[in-house]
């Protein structure tokens, strides 16, 4: 269903209200809800987290915008709370980690296919293959330390197998920067995609930095440290694709448009009626924010915001298994490496090689945890019990 974001004005800011009880409302079911409900929840928490992060940065640099930023930000704070509190208490930090990686694979794969700029589509595919490998390593951790099956969370939508090995993803900072889009030429979807994936990766980084030290197993603690470092690289990569010459108000406007686009995408795919009502409500709230910022832009910068926005939103993010696209990318691009802003085969910079050798010099947690690991339905112990029986060691 098309949405004309220039005509639809949503709910005005002064009518956007919350109570503690509704913010901390009933969570989704880890067992019964579709995996994409968790994926959407994790992504939208990341989108709202980015809204707050950006808003604070903008406030520190723009005295005149501090009050309007604070006014919208307070609502975003409570939106983020209501979204993030949908995660249920029986979903452990490692369960949520599996959800984060499913977001990074499935959403980035959808974005890579909708991206009209071929270079940026390559950037998304490159990052996606790295997160794809993280899923394999965390699934091995869940299986080999806790005796649990990551597929119970993934529900068969997402492969559990090696991608670009995490141990070779460590790069020097100069090899993580990319060429930004040109704000005067880029398609609206290009700007929405970049803000979406940057937000998702930033929240992933922050989540791993929060829960990593709460994991007891020493290999698990090291694995969180290692993958958090890659997520920091991913944030570096994705924020560098956004044109830094956009004004603060232009960036704010695109953040609000990104939130509208994402809630609208969530509405299209959501099967849980209670969660869908939240996406619909917040779509209306975000339309209110968007029009509030459009008015600010007209007043402060004397610019016409409609020149920056699409009247009709592009196709929504597709919340459906991207297995075929991911496998095709894996087969064709797993050996790509980043040198400067380019993707190449068969070479890497000396700076990256030195940096990586140092980090891995006392062992690689991602290699250790997945040594010889092959996922099997019901964990690798389901295969092992058959093997041990066949060897006559157990009955």
């Amino acid at each position, binding site marked *: 269903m098309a949405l004309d974001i220039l005509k639809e004005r949503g709910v005005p800011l002064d009518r956007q209200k919350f109570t503690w009880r509704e913010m901390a409302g*009933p969570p989704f079911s880890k067992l019964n*809800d579709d995996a994409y409900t968790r994926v959407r929840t994790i992504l939208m928490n990341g989108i709202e987290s980015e809204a707050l992060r950006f808003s604070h940065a903008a406030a520190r640099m723009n005295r005149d915008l501090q009050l309007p930023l604070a006014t919208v930000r307070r609502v975003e704070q409570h939106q983020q709370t209501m979204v993030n509190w949908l995660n249920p208490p029986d979903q452990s930090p490692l369960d949520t980690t599996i959800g984060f990686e499913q977001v990074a694979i499935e959403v980035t794969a959808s974005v890579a296919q909708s991206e009209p700029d071929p270079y940026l589509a390559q950037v998304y595919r490159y990052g996606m293959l790295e997160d794809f490998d993280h899923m394999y390593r965390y699934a091995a951790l869940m299986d080999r330390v806790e005796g649990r099956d990551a*597929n*119970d*969370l993934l529900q068969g939508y997402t492969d559990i197998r090696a991608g670009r090995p995490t141990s070779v993803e460590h790069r020097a900072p100069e090899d993580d920067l990319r060429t930004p889009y040109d704000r005067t030429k880029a398609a609206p979807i290009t700007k929405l995609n970049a803000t979406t994936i940057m937000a998702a990766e930033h929240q992933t980084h922050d989540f791993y930095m929060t829960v990593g030290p709460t994991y007891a197993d*020493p*290999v698990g603690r090291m694995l969180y440290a290692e993958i958090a470092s890659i997520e920091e690289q991913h944030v570096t990569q994705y924020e560098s694709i956004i044109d830094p010459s956009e004004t603060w108000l232009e960036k704010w406007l695109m953040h609000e448009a990104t939130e509208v686009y994402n809630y609208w995408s969530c509405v299209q795919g959501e099967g849980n009626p209670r969660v869908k009502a939240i996406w619909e409500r917040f779509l209306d709230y975000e339309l209110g924010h968007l029009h509030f910022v459009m008015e600010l832009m007209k007043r402060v910068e004397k610019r016409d915001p409609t020149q920056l926005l699409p009247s009709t939103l592009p196709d929504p993010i597709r919340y459906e298994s991207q297995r075929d696209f991911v496998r095709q990318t894996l087969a064709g691009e797993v050996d790509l490496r980043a040198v400067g802003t380019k993707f190449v085969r068969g070479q890497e910079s000396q700076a990256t090689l030195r940096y990586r050798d140092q980090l891995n010099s006392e062992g690689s947690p991602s290699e*250790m945890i997945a*040594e010889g690991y092959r996922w099997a339905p019901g964990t690798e112990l389901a295969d092992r019990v058959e093997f041990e029986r066949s060897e006559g060691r157990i009955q």
Partner: protein
Amino acid sequence: MTHKPTDVGRNRTGSGTSPLDTKKTAEGATASMPQRSFEMPTATKLRVDICGQSEPVGTMPPPTSLKGAAATVLQKLKGKNANVLLDLLGQRLAFERTGVRLYEALLAKYDAASLHDEGIAREDIENIRDEELEHFGVLVDVMRQLGADPTAVTPAADVTAVASSGILKVLADPRTTFTECLDAMMIAELADNAAWLVLADLAARVGLDEAASKFRKALGEEEQHLAKVQHWLIARIDGQLGVERTLPAPAPSMPPPPG
């Protein structure tokens, strides 16, 4: 609550709910790792190395008093490592203190539950809660007599709190049922019984006769708690299963163990 956890619903875990997708995932996993191994020797060696080098979660606090009654009591422990006993006392104290909160949470579950003719009286749960509080008080007194700080977290108290943190999560979660909570409380009571047995025995063997006597009384009461929780749990499960069974009610009191 419109559904019971045992209703057939839309649980999407397991390969049975997505057989085709799961088959594809398994085929992909096999293709990417044709020669698998169930061992992870490098990680195992690292764990052993780090376990061998790690400091404990913490150590015992210094005694608050070595004078008066505490000095007299500790005389009885001469030649023995009193800290081992104090650590266990701290562990039990913390467990009993949390036990009060567990039973308070169970009362909320009881009030929200659909109860049938299962012979579960609210005042029985209240009595157990009060006895947990009483046991906490006993341990506070004994620790003070021994010159220990009952407000400190001993290493065993900390580790046991980690071990039992899942029980608290089950009781606190509004989605869990009264029956599920009884199941979690059974884990707590089984552990509590075994621990009181050790503590009562230890106190007697090191000559802390007055404390040993109080601990044996607490153990007898804890045995009653376990018997009641098991009885209620079985009654609930039988009711849900639709089978009839005549269960003997828990004995009104259990004789204290010898010693």
